[in-house]
């Protein structure tokens, strides 16, 4: 595997999960030892495993301590300046300010607790802290995943200034759209090898995706015709809360609609308002023509036939330490049961077994604990759980995030089946490839509103990347369409 990063450049490192990005970074960080090969810094051969290099790492979870101040967080990495053995607090504050100013970023009050900063300011602090060690190369691992769009743009600004100061940046990202206009060069990894190294100007998003996947991109749609119903299954009008909206759209029975945006665009909030997990500030939701009362909670919405598959599998779906039976039939509402009607173990077992067989979950043992399953198999169980609820409208957040390609296709197939059965599906996702492959229609969310609608042949990864990026503002880096 090769990677060459020039001085003063932003170098993008892309690849699918498992392509070897993390391993490469860990070798550079000295966590793993390389079997063979060498690392050269400014032409000199170095060994990251033995010596510590002027490299700094900013991981996705920034490793900041929320309870401590900005200055203290910097000092935790850079060391506390001391006077007579005691911490020299004025210098702690001064140094934090200096590093910010060196990057031409307006420093926050260094005495402010980090918990009070916005997500973007935290990410910037993560970089500031990395620079406190006089790094020549900063490695950023998916730094914008949790950032709302304007904040990401702010972070990109900081990166450009960093580049201008002669520092190199290795930028790991799944969000190809944001690389255009930001990165100078890109290295694509696949199966632990470099498959392409190119200047960003010479490559298109489609090429990048094809390099990552190792095959030409087939933008196949579940192209079953959807007749335009006089009365749509779901009609949302002027729905809004603090994070999103107002938005208006409709979903017909049997339709799979993508609600697409870069993470933080506000599309998650829309799905959650429909499910009753978030209170809307205004607007109307109609299911089958019936106006849903605004104050309804999740239980009431489930009873009306709305389901939500949460995006955060570990925290919001998994019932750790519980069996697959219990994970498939966790509550009365989902099992189609009454709260006081006895559960019959043999019947539950048969029911769970049927779902496991249909979804090809490994192991196919209903008594296995959910913790024993791989991520993809767990996700199949959680999809299966909601299929048992026999809902009419499914809100699916990132239905295949972080799972292997086989399980991904299996879940896509399931969702297509569900839609054919007459249910409506709203796929809330930041995964453009998924939306392009799965959805009949996509609503692109940018700055909390619907900025465009793509359908039919126009629904491609490229178009989604372009539209999502435009919606997020040219600054976020839409290569071809940056002027739009």
């Amino acid at each position: 595997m090769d990677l060459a990063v020039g001085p003063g450049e932003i170098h993008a490192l892309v690849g699918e999960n498992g392509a070897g990005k993390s391993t490469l970074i860990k070798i550079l960080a000295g966590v793993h030892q390389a079997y063979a090969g060498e690392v050269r810094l400014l032409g000199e051969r170095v060994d990251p495993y033995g010596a510590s290099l002027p490299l700094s790492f900013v991981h996705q979870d920034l490793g900041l301590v929320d309870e401590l101040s900005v200055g203290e967080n910097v000092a935790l990495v850079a060391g506390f300046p001391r006077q007579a053995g005691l911490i020299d607090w004025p210098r702690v504050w001064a140094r934090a300010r200096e590093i910010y100013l060196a990057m031409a970023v307006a420093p926050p009050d260094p005495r402010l607790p980090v918990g009070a900063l916005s997500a973007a300011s935290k990410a910037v602090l993560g970089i500031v802290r990395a620079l406190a060690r006089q790094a020549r190369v900063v490695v950023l691992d998916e730094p914008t995943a949790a950032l709302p769009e304007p904040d990401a743009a702010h972070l990109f600004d900081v990166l450009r200034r960093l580049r201008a100061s002669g520092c190199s940046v290795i930028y790991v990202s799944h969000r190809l759209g944001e690389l255009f206009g930001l990165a100078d060069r890109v290295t694509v990894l696949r199966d632990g090898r470099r498959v392409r190294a190119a200047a960003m100007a010479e490559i298109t998003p489609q090429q990048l995706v094809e390099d990552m996947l190792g095959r030409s991109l087939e933008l196949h749609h579940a192209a079953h015709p959807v007749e335009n119903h006089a009365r749509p299954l779901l009609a949302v009008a002027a729905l809004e809360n603090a994070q999103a909206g107002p938005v208006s759209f409709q979903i017909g029975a049997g339709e799979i609609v993508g609600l697409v945006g870069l993470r933080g665009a506000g599309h998650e909030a829309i799905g959650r308002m429909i499910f009753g997990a978030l209170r809307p500030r205004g607007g109307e939701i109609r299911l089958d023509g019936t106006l849903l009362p605004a104050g309804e909670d999740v239980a009431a919405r489930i009873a009306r036939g709305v389901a939500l598959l949460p995006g955060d599998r570990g925290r919001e779906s998994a019932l750790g330490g519980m069996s697959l039976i219990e994970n498939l039939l966790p509550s009365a509402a989902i099992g189609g049961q009454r709260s006081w009607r006895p559960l019959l173990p043999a019947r539950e077992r048969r029911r769970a077994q049927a779902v496991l067989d249909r979804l090809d979950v490994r192991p196919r043992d209903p008594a296995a604990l959910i913790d024993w399953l791989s991520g993809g198999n767990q996700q199949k169980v959680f999809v299966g759980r909601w299929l048992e609820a026999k809902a009419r409208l499914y809100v699916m957040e990132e239905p295949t995030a972080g799972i292997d390609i086989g399980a991904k296709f299996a879940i896509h197939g399931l969702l297509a089946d569900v839609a054919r059965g007459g249910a409506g599906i709203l796929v809330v996702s930041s995964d453009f490839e998924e939306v392009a492959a799965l959805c009949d229609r996509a609503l692109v969310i940018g700055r909390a509103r619907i900025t465009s609608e793509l359908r039919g042949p126009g629904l491609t990864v490229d178009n989604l990347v372009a539209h999502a990026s435009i919606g997020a503002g040219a600054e976020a880096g839409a290569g071809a369409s940056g002027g739009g």
Partner: protein
Amino acid sequence: MDEQVSTNERLADTAAARPHASGRLADLTAVYGLAVVFVLVMVVFGILRPNSFFSTMNMNAVLVGQSVTAMLALAEMVPLATRQFDLSVGFHLGMAHVLMIGLQVQQNLSWPAAAAIVLAVALLVGALNGILITRFGIDSFIATMGLGTLLYGVSNWYSGGAQITGLNLPASFANLTEVIGYIPLPAVYVAIVAVILWVVTERLPVGRALYVIGASPRAAELLGIRTKLYIGGAFVTSGLLSGIAGIMLASILGTGTPSVGPEYLLPAFASTLLGATSIHPGRVNVIGTLLAVLILAFSFSGVQQLGAAFYVQYFFNGGILIVAVGLSVYAAARRRALAAAGAGKAGAAD
């Protein structure tokens, strides 16, 4: 073609089953561990003290004496299923038994009337715990400790800090906890409550919801489980059972002593947690809890018959609590390790 498919399936099945098979033995020992320990305790002390240990008197003494602990352990189990602590059960038990005696002696109420009041107060106490935790968001550890201490104050205030002697209590009240033939009535009450709780926790969606909340409150909410209602309900149940335990204790003792109560918390707690290491490892459960109470009671009784001093009881309860939690942590780690191995193999089969 058909044969091909079935062969593939069989391969997949065996690959998936392999980690499970190696986990089976560990599972079996985990599931029946407490039952085995219980039998061992009975056999060992039965051999060491064959005449006294199995005597009807000893059996009844243990069963009657431990029925209060067992009832309290069951009370504790319900909120623990949702991973909420109820540290008020001991204090609550004390207050309930003081009230039960006091209302008869000082207010001249009949025992059913006094019992009705005690149970009403018990429901109120449970509801208060629930409200403090779900409405005001106070950590259950703090809320129940605080409310429990308040209850302790109430029973001391009501009794003036002195023991209330129930000299003229009706025989019908003392008979509530008598031994009929070979069967001690308190054990029967515990059995009835245990059966009801078993059905609720193992066979009703309501009980499953409690465990789901315990596994992940956030996931439970997104599954349409009204977590606040369930947690509140768990504390009301815990309060009610503590009140029943108080009535039993009053009937057994025949006096109301305001200092009694807090010392019941730890054995109840220890039993519930020890019970969670077995039957459904990693999860508090009715049968495990009862087995744990019996093991603690009979082994302590056995040690006593071997001539141990009274204070050994505290070593027992404290030691068991630490060992129980240690065991469950170890069991959980072991299962995780097995799970990781299982996931690896299942992944390889994909």
